[in-house]
C-alpha cells in the first residue's frame, strides 16, 4: 500500500499500480485511450496527463503521463490542475483533427470511449481548418466491420490482437499520422477472438458487423446478466434486445471468469434466437392450440402411462430437474449416450474426488506450466485457450519482475522478455491454434493417453509404467514431466472432446502424480456443453437405457436433438414406438419434427435458469426480454415452467406457473451436490434502495412509440415475478451500491465498456460485490487408485477410425444455426494423413465417398501431415456428418465427376 495525495486529498492505493490505475480504482475520472486493464500501459496517447509535484510545497509541478508513472509513497499529484486539464483537452483536440464527421452513422456512437473522453475533457469545438486524412477500409469477414477514418492511433487493437490474443494477420502499417491498422489485404480475420476488437477499440474503427443490419444504440437495448451457452466455459455476457430481437452480445465482466474478453462463437453466435422458423406455438399433431386446451388434451393422453423423460446438457438445471420431477428419477435420462455419460461421470469423479482443485478461468492465467492433453482448446473451449496463452506469457512478467519492471509496463515487459514463455505442452491429434506458444505431440487418441500415462510415471514413479513407447516420445514425456515439476503452479488441461476415456484416466493419473509430488497444481477439464457438468451433478440414466419404449409410454424430450447423439435408425426405431412424443425445444430440430406435442421452449434470452460451467461454477442467466410484449400471442415459455405446469395439470390441480426461485429451490433441495445453486444469484426479492434492478439504460427511448403500431394504447410493461430485474429503465442502475448481477455497463460519463471500471474493486480486478457465480466442486482427494495404462493405437489395414475434429464455428449445436456464422462453418470434409492419401491415390480437395457398415457420406478430402495413418478426422456438428466418435470407415473412394 502507498499513500498518495490527489488534489489535496489523501488516499491509500496499491503501491504496485501505476497512477492511472490508482486514480481509476479510486473512482476518479482520468481520461485515457491506449491503456487497458488487460493490456497494460504504453504511454502512447498522452491523454492521461496529470500534474505531479515534488512535495506539498511545490506549486509548479510537472506533467506526467499517469499510466506510465508508478505510484510512490507520499506522492503529490493533481488531476484538476489547470495546466493538466488544458493539456488533456489539447490532446483530444489533436486526436480529433482527422476524426470524420461520422457519429450519427457510426455504430460505436453511444458506447464510444472516444465520445466519453471528448466530453470528459471538455473539447467541444473544432479549430483545425485543414483537410482530414482518409483511409480505405478493409473487408474483414462477417463479424467485424472496419472504418479506418475513425482511428486515433492508440494501438490498442494490435496490442490486443497480436500481443494478447496471438493473432498474426492484423498489423500496423505506414508512418506518422498515416498509420493504418489492418490486414495486409482484405480477408477474414483469422483470430477466434477478433470480436473483442469491437470492445477494445476505443472508437468506431472495429464494430460488430452482425449487429449492423438491425443496428440500434446501446442506450436503446434491454439487457440482462446472462451466461454464454456456446461451450462449457461459462463466460458472462450481456445480451441486448430491441423490438423483440436479440441484437448484440456484449462482454460482461466477471473477475473470476472471462474478464474483458469473449470468443467469436460466444459473441456472434446468438442469431439462432432470432430465427423465424423457431417453434412459437403449442402444437398438437401440427395444430396450434391454446395453452389450456393443450394441457387438457395432453393430460388426457398422459394419464396412466409411464412417462419417460430425456434431459439435455444444453438445458438449465431447473428445466432438467423439472423433467426429472415429472417423470420420476427412474425414468429420467440425461439425454447423453452411454459413452458420453461415462466420460462425463469420470470427469466429475476426477473433479470431485481427485486430488487437484479446478482452476477458475482467470486463475488459468496465473499458472507457470500448462499441459494440454488431448484437447484442441481453441475449438472446444476457446476462452480457455486465450487464458492458456496468457499463462505462457506470464514468463515475461516474471523476467520483468526480476529486473524490477512493473507488470503493467507492457512494452518494457515485452522487450525484456524477448518472447520468453512459460512451458506449454499440447498433446493432440493434429495442429492446434495454440501451437505457436507450445511444444506439441501429435498422435492418435490412445497414444495421447499413453503419453499422458508416461508423463504421470515420470512425475511420480509409483504411477504405472508405460511400455512400448518410442524413445523420442519417452524423452518428450520426461522433459515435460520435469518442466511440470520445475514449475511453481502447473496446470493440467484435458477433456472429453476426443471421446477417449483413456485420456481422462491419464489426466487423473497425472493429477495424482502431481499431488504426490506436492505440487500446487490445478486441473481444468473441458466438458462438451454449457450445462454438461450440471447435468452430471443432477444425475440420470444414459440415453440408451430409456429408449426401450413401448406404445404405452409417453416420451418427453427436453431441448435435445436425439439425432445428434445416436444413429438415425436407432432413434427412428425408438420414436416409432411411442404414441405420445412431447418435445420441448426452441429450434426446429429433427427430433422436434417427429413430435406429436411441441411445447415451444425459451432460449437463454427469454428464460431464467442456472448452468454449471466446466470449473463447477453455478451461474444464473436471466431473461433478457419478454417476447409477448411485441407478439401478444407468443407461447414461448421456459422449459421448467412448461414441465412444472404440466405436472400440476397431471395432478388435476389448477395450472401452477411456478417461479424461478421455487424451481431453483426445488432443484437445490433435491440434489445435495447442487445445494449451492441457491446462492448463484440474488433471489427475486432482492432490492437496492427498495428498487428492482433496471434492465434498460436510463436513456431507453421510444417507449410510447415502439409498440404503437400494434396498438396505440400502451399496455403495462411486463412484470418480472421471477427475478429482481424490471423490464424497464425504472430501477437501480447505478454503480454506488453493491451488486453482482449487472445487466449492462454504464456509469455517468462512461457509456463504453470502460464503465466496468466503476464496478470493480480495482480496475481490471474483481467486481466490488464479488464476482458472480458460486463454485460447487471442491476436490476431496478421496480417490487414490491409479488408472492402468491403455493399449496402444493399432492402425488397421484398409480401415479408418474416425476422430472428432472440433470447430469453434460449426461444432456448437446452437451457434451453428446462426445465419451470419454460415460462411465461417467449414463445408463437410474429412481429413486423413498424407500417407494414407498417397497410398489410396487421393489428392487434397478431392470429393470422396466414405463408407461405413451403416451409411455413406460424400465429403471433401483434406490431407494432414500430422494426423496418424489409419485415422480419419471428421468435423463435429457439421450437417450430414455423424457426431459419433470411433466410427469405422471401411472405404474411401473418389467420386466420379
Amino acid at each position, binding site marked *: 500500500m502507498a499513500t498518495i495525495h490527489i488534489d489535496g486529498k489523501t488516499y491509500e492505493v496499491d503501491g504496485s499500480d501505476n497512477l492511472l490505475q490508482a486514480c481509476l480504482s479510486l473512482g476518479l475520472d482520468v481520461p485515457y485511450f491506449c491503456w487497458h486493464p488487460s493490456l497494460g500501459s504504453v504511454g502512447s496517447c498522452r491523454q492521461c496527463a496529470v500534474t505531479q509535484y515534488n512535495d506539498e510545497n511545490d506549486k509548479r509541478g510537472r506533467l506526467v503521463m499517469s499510466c506510465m508513472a508508478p505510484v510512490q509513497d507520499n506522492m503529490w499529484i493533481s488531476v484538476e490542475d489547470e495546466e493538466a486539464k488544458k493539456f488533456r483537452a489539447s490532446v483530444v483536440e489533436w486526436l480529433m483533427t482527422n476524426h*470524420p*464527421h*461520422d*457519429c*450519427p*452513422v*457510426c455504430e460505436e*456512437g*453511444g458506447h464510444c470511449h472516444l465520445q466519453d473522453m471528448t466530453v470528459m475533457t471538455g473539447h467541444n469545438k473544432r479549430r483545425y*481548418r*485543414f*483537410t*482530414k*486524412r*482518409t*483511409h*480505405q*477500409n478493409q473487408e474483414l469477414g462477417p463479424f467485424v466491420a472496419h*472504418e479506418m*477514418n*475513425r482511428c486515433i492511433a492508440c494501438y490498442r487493437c494490435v496490442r490486443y490482437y497480436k500481443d494478447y490474443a496471438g493473432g498474426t494477420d492484423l498489423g500496423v*502499417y*505506414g*508512418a*506518422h499520422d*498515416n498509420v*493504418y491498422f*489492418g490486414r495486409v489485404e482484405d480477408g477474414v480475420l483469422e483470430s477466434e477472438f477478433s470480436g473483442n476488437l469491437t470492445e477494445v477499440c476505443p472508437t468506431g474503427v472495429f464494430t460488430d458487423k452482425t449487429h*449492423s*443490419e*438491425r*443496428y*440500434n*444504440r446501446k*442506450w*436503446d437495448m434491454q439487457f440482462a446478466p446472462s451466461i454464454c451457452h456456446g461451450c462449457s466455459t461459462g463466460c458472462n455476457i450481456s445480451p441486448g434486445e430491441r*423490438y423483440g430481437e436479440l441484437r448484440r452480445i456484449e462482454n460482461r465482466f466477471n473477475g473470476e471468469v472471462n474478464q474483458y474478453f469473449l470468443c467469436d462463437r460466444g459473441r456472434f453466435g446468438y442469431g439462432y434466437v432470432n430465427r423465424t422458423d423457431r417453434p412459437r406455438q403449442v402444437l398438437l399433431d401440427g395444430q396450434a392450440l391454446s395453452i389450456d386446451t393443450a394441457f387438457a388434451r395432453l393430460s388426457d393422453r398422459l394419464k396412466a402411462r409411464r412417462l419417460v423423460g430425456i434431459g439435455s446438457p444444453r438445458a438449465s438445471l431447473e428445466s432438467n430437474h423439472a423433467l426429472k420431477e415429472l417423470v420420476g428419477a427412474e425414468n429420467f435420462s440425461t439425454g447423453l449416450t452411454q459413452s458420453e455419460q461415462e466420460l462425463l461421470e469420470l470427469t466429475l469423479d476426477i473433479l470431485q474426488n481427485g486430488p487437484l482443485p479446478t482452476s477458475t478461468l482467470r486463475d488459468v492465467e496465473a499458472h507457470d506450466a500448462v499441459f494440454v492433453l488431448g484437447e484442441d482448446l481453441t475449438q472446444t473451449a476457446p476462452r480457455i485457450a486465450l487464458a492458456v496463452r496468457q499463462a505462457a506469457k506470464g514468463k515475461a512478467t516474471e523476467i520483468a519482475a526480476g529486473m524490477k519492471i512493473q507488470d503493467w509496463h507492457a512494452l518494457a515487459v515485452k522487450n525484456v522478455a524477448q518472447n520468453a514463455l512459460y512451458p506449454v505442452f499440447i498433446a493432440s491429434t493434429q495442429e492446434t491454434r495454440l501451437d505457436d506458444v507450445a511444444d506439441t505431440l501429435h498422435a492418435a487418441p490412445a497414444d495421447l493417453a499413453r503419453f499422458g500415462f508416461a508423463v504421470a510415471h515420470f512425475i511420480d514413479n509409483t504411477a504405472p509404467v508405460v511400455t512400448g513407447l518410442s524413445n523420442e516420445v519417452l524423452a518428450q514425456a520426461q522433459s515435460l514431466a520435469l518442466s511440470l515439476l520445475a514449475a511453481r503452479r502447473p496446470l493440467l488441461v484435458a477433456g472429453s472432446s476426443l471421446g477417449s476415456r483413456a485420456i481422462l484416466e491419464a489426466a487423473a493419473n497425472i493429477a495424482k502424480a502431481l499431488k504426490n509430488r506436492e505440487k500446487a497444481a490445478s486441473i481444468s477439464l473441458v466438458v462438451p456443453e454449457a450445462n454438461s457438468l450440471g447435468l452430471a451433478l443432477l444425475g440420470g440414466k444414459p440415453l440408451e437405457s430409456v429408449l426401450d419404449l413401448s406404445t404405452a409410454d409417453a416420451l418427453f424430450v427436453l431441448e435435445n436433438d436425439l439425432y445428434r447423439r445416436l444413429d438415425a435408425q436407432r432413434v427412428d426405431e425408438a420414436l416409432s414406438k411411442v404414441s405420445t412424443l412431447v418435445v420441448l425445444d426452441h429450434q426446429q430440430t429433427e427430433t422436434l419434427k417427429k413430435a406429436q406435442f411441441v411445447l415451444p421452449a425459451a432460449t437463454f434470452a427469454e428464460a431464467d435458469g442456472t448452468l454449471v460451467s466446466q470449473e463447477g461454477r453455478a451461474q444464473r442467466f436471466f431473461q433478457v426480454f419478454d417476447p409477448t410484449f411485441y407478439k401478444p400471442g407468443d407461447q414461448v415459455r421456459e422449459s421448467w415452467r412448461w414441465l412444472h405446469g404440466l405436472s400440476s395439470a397431471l395432478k388435476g390441480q389448477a395450472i401452477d406457473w411456478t417461479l424461478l426461485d421455487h424451481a431453483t429451490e426445488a432443484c437445490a433441495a433435491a440434489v445435495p451436490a447442487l445445494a449451492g445453486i441457491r446462492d448463484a444469484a440474488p433471489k427475486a426479492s432482492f432490492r437496492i434502495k427498495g428498487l428492482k434492478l433496471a434492465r434498460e439504460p436510463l*436513456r*431507453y*427511448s*421510444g*417507449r*410510447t*412509440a*415502439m409498440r*404503437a*403500431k400494434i*396498438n*396505440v*394504447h400502451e399496455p403495462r410493461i411486463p412484470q418480472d415475478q421471477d427475478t429482481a430485474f424490471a423490464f424497464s429503465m425504472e430501477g437501480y442502475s447505478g454503480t454506488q451500491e453493491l451488486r453482482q448481477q449487472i445487466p449492462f455497463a454504464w456509469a455517468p460519463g462512461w457509456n463504453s465498456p470502460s464503465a466496468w471500471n466503476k464496478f470493480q474493486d480495482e480496475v481490471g480486478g474483481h467486481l466490488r460485490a464479488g464476482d458472480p457465480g458460486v463454485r460447487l466442486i471442491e476436490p476431496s482427494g478421496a480417490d487414490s487408485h491409479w488408472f492402468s495404462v491403455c493399449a496402444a493405437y493399432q492402425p488397421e489395414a484398409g480401415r479408418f477410425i474416425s476422430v472428432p475434429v472440433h470447430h469453434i464455428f460449426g461444432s456448437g449445436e446452437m451457434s451453428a444455426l446462426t445465419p451470419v456464422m454460415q460462411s465461417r462453418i467449414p463445408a463437410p470434409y474429412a481429413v486423413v494423413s498424407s500417407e494414407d492419401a498417397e497410398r489410396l491415390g487421393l489428392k487434397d480437395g478431392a470429393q470422396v465417398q466414405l463408407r461405413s457398415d451403416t451409411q455413406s457420406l460424400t465429403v471433401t478430402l483434406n490431407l494432414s501431415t500430422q494426423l496418424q495413418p489409419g485415422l480419419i478426422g471428421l468435423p463435429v456438428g457439421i450437417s450430414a456428418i455423424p457426431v459419433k466418435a470411433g466410427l469405422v470407415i471401411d472405404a474411401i473412394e473418389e467420386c466420379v465427376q
Partner: protein
Amino acid sequence: MIRSIIHILHGTYTQLRSLVMVFSHAFRKRDTLQYPEEAVYLPPRYRGRIVLTRDPDGQERCVACNLCAVACPASCISLQKTEAEDGRWYPEFFRINFSRCIFCGMCEEACPTTAIQLTPDFEMADFRRQDLVYEKEDLLISGPGKYPEYNFYRVSGLSITGKPKGAAQNEAAPINVKGLLP
C-alpha cells in the same frame, strides 16, 4: 393606529383602482382570434407537425442515428436503422406517436442531419387515437424544408456510392498505405 388606518385606506384605494382599470378593458380591442373563420398566422419556426425532409439530392436525410428518439422527453419516436445498397443509413421504419408528442422540438435540435423538422401546422386532430401514429410514409416530405443546402453525406466521412473516401468536405485523398514516401 393611524398608520393602519392609512394602510386600509390605501388598500381600499388600490382595490378601487383595480376595479376601474379592469373595467376600462371593456373598451379595448379583443385579442381573441376567431379561429377557424380567421386564419392563424404561424411563424416559420412554429413547432407543429413533424416531418422528415430530403437532402438536395432528393435522398432521405434521416440516417437513423436515433438521437431524436433519445432526445424525446415523451419517448414517442421509434425507428430502426438499416443500410441501403449504396452504404447510406436510413430508417427501415420511423414512427412518431403524435398522441404522445408534446411538440417541444428537441428532436429537431438533436438531429445532426436536419432531417427531422417541425412545421407550422397544428391541424392534425383526429377521431381515432390510432390514426395519430404516423409512420415514415406519413412523415416523409419531398423537399429539404428549412435547410435547403445541407447534405450530411457531403460532410460525413462515411463513403457511399458516388462519394468515395476522401471526397467529403475538407478531406484529403485516401492514404496509400503501401507507399514509401514519408
